């Protein structure tokens, strides 16, 4: 069940990445939604989960992009594993902390991606320092937003359930 949810989330992230994100990138806000999903999932599930989601998400993203297949997969695998291992050691349950983790994970991912590509081709850096930082900040904002919504959703559901139970008790039914 959990695997199906992760697959669905990755698929939605990929569709949004290819349909909505290019428009944002055109407006100067480049976002990597698949990376955000990988990082948030790695925080909640640990290093092994992060590793697998990073591998699958990265490879799918590579297959749909114009680059070498495996480079994004490798970068996301490493990031997923590292974030998972970090989240096991430290408490990063607050959305604010998760946004920070997304920020640093994005910088590490950009470093890996640029590094691997510089080994494969001599066309120069695939992105500038400014581009990498802008993307990391954009990812952190999206990641923080998603973490806030995901964090608030269970509480809101519980509140609604309690209110319904109280009303049922008061008026019967």
């Amino acid at each position, binding site marked *: 069940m959990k695997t199906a949810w992760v697959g669905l989330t990755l698929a939605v992230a990929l569709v949004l990445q290819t349909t909505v994100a290019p428009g944002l990138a055109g407006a100067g806000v480049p976002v990597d939604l698949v990376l955000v999903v990988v990082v948030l999932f790695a925080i909640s599930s640990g290093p092994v989960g992060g590793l697998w989601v990073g591998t699958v998400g990265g490879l799918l993203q590579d297959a749909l992009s114009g680059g*070498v297949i495996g480079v994004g997969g*490798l970068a996301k695998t490493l990031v997923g*594993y590292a974030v998972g291992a970090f989240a096991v050691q430290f408490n990063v349950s607050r959305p604010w902390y998760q946004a920070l983790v997304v920020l640093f994970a994005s910088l590490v991912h950009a470093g890996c991606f640029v590094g691997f590509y510089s080994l494969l081709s001599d066309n120069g850096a695939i992105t500038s320092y400014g581009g990498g930082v802008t993307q990391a900040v954009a990812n952190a904002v999206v990641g923080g937003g998603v973490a806030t919504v995901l964090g608030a959703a269970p509480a809101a559901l519980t509140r609604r359930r309690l209110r319904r139970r109280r009303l049922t008790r008061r008026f019967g039914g």
Partner: protein
Amino acid sequence: MLLLAVVLGHIVLISLQVNTPSGVRLFEGVTFGLFSEVQRGVARATGGVTGLWDGYVGLVSVEAENTALRRDVAQLQLRLQQERAVAQRVRGLEELLEFRSDVVYSTVSARVIAGDATPYFRTVTIDRGTRDGVRRDSAVVSPDGVVGRVLSDPGPRAAKVQLLVDRSAAAGVLIERTRVAGTVKGDGAEGLLRMEYVSNLDDVRVGDRVVTSGADGIYPKGFEVGEVEEVGPGSGLYRAIRVRPNVAFSDLEDVLVIVPDATASTTAAGGE
């Protein structure tokens, strides 16, 4: 241990592609084929909403726009007649000089249904594929100029197009005024092109128009690429030239794919 195995797997996968691209075609083909159908559906849904908005809600200033467009059409018709007359004269002169007439290209119109899956590359997905005669390396153009080329083997109903501004894209070009030849390469992030291999002795000025030279075997000769924006002394024998492309790559919606034979000259963009 698991991490090491997965990393090794990735390295083998990357190495396979460095030597030959055949190793991962199946994976790429299946993933691209599946996702292009999803992207087609999403593009159709968003297109429907946009169409509803443009067709009903956004008709406030249509009357004034219509009048202006009618005036433009009249002017363009007049200009077309003049151009026809010039073309006739040129054809006559060509016959006189026994030149071979230019090839008329078959084109297929296509709609952009998705962008690149990463922020690092500049590719788009179009809703035409091998069924419509689109092949690997088919040139893609728009009324404004050269857009790019079809990357890898296209699917039956969709194809990936590498935009000319992608950092690994290039095209053979000429400065229209002086016929100085060079190569334009994408600059990725900034949306500009670098024109390379133009000698410091060659005459190139800001504002010069850049057109395709046909030397690369992909883009036909004479298509507009852009305008020289900056000319400076390069580090060695060559000038450092920046070209602003004519095509607005961020707002691409409809494009034309040049197909090898007279398969079609269809007009319904995205329509079946």
